[in-house]
């Protein structure tokens, strides 16, 4: 293994640049170094002006998502050695406005997320402060996969539908809606339906499936969406039935 590797990093300085440019840096190549370690080396040793987001370095905070050699990835979990001898291209996540260098704006997602009410909705009690809701392991199983989402936005970066149709609610928001819809303690499924069963909701999805391949947490947002399509379609069909038989 060579002892250095070249990183081609996208730079965008909003005050001077009209569009991003690529800049090359040579960083040490170590077996245990992730792309994020390479970026931190640049920031600490070579060029303090490089901007990027990160926090946990362990695939939990979801802030270090970038495009590595064309694929959306968590840079803290993507290892430089896998790209040796390089060079490795590091660009901001696709489908989002670039604020500076590798930092993207995710306001669009932050606006959409609360629309699906990603919290436990209860209709029978006014508050949940001192109520205990019991749940069995099989009930937990129903939604646990969807609760693993870390809002890293890799699925949005991978989704061509989101690229073309920015109004699309998007994979993670729908997966999170399902996380609560399938929770035995939740009663808000019909409230979420108004947002989910729409042209900007699940019906915008044409099942490319790239969101699921990109997801670092095994959430399978594409599966969540297809599953909800069936739910929505069944509900619509049922609504044609006479009242007693629904």
């Amino acid at each position, binding site marked *: 293994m060579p002892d250095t590797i070249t990183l081609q990093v996208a730079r*965008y300085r*909003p*005050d*001077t*640049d*009209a*569009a*991003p440019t690529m800049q090359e840096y040579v960083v040490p190549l170590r077996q245990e170094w992730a792309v994020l370690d390479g970026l931190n080396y640049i920031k600490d040793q070579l060029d303090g002006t490089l901007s990027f987001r990160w926090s946990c370095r362990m695939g939990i905070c979801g802030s270090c998502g970038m495009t590595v050699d*064309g694929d959306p990835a968590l840079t803290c979990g993507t290892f430089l050695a896998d790209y040796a001898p390089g060079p490795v291209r590091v660009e901001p996540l*696709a*489908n989002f*406005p*670039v*604020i500076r260098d590798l930092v993207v*704006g995710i*306001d669009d997602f*932050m606006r959409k997320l609360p629309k699906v009410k990603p919290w436990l909705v209860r209709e029978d009690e006014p508050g949940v402060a001192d109520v205990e809701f019991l749940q069995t392991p*099989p009930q937990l199983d129903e939604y646990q996969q969807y609760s693993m989402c870390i809002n890293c936005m890799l699925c949005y970066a991978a989704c*061509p539908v989101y*690229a*073309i149709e920015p109004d699309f609610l998007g994979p993670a928001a729908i997966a999170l809606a399902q996380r609560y819809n399938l929770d035995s303690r939740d009663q808000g499924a019909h409230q979420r339906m108004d947002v989910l069963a729409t042209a900007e909701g699940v019906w915008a999805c*044409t*099942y*490319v*499936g*790239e969101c699921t*391949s990109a997801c670092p947490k095994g959430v*399978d947002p*594409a*599966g969540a969406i*297809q*599953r909800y*399509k*069936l739910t929505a379609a069944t509900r619509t069909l049922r609504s044609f039935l006479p009242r007693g038989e629904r």
Partner: protein
Amino acid sequence: MSELARESSMQRPHEAPTQRAVPAQVRPYRPRVSRFWWLRRRSYLLFVLRELSSVFVAWFVVYLLLLVDAVYQGPDPYRRFLEWSGRPWVLVLNMVALAFVLLHAITWFNLAPKAMVLRMQGRRVPARLVAAAHFAAWGVASGVVAWIVLGGL
């Protein structure tokens, strides 16, 4: 102002004239979607082909209606329809349509286990089994049709 709030106020170009404090050039860069985005990945290409397949599915419906109409009109129009169907360009068109319809059907059945989560005795039925059941039903239906068409009845 928090960083997020500032970003979002910069992202509304139509409000630019009222935002003198923010110079025009510090707006976020919005990458354009290339017209050939669907060539970038195999999965994107497959997806576009699958979308395109709906045109051919529609063509088969039209073709079937033309056939039914020809049969209804009597032996002569029916013979003319068969002759027309045997023309090279119609044959090629139908071959291409068949390929697309197969792509459509196969990807559709592969998707079925994603949409259907079945449980039997508390356990989730494996995805392969759900898909296999769909393919089996398809096979049986095709078999019955073939049997009828090839003179079983």
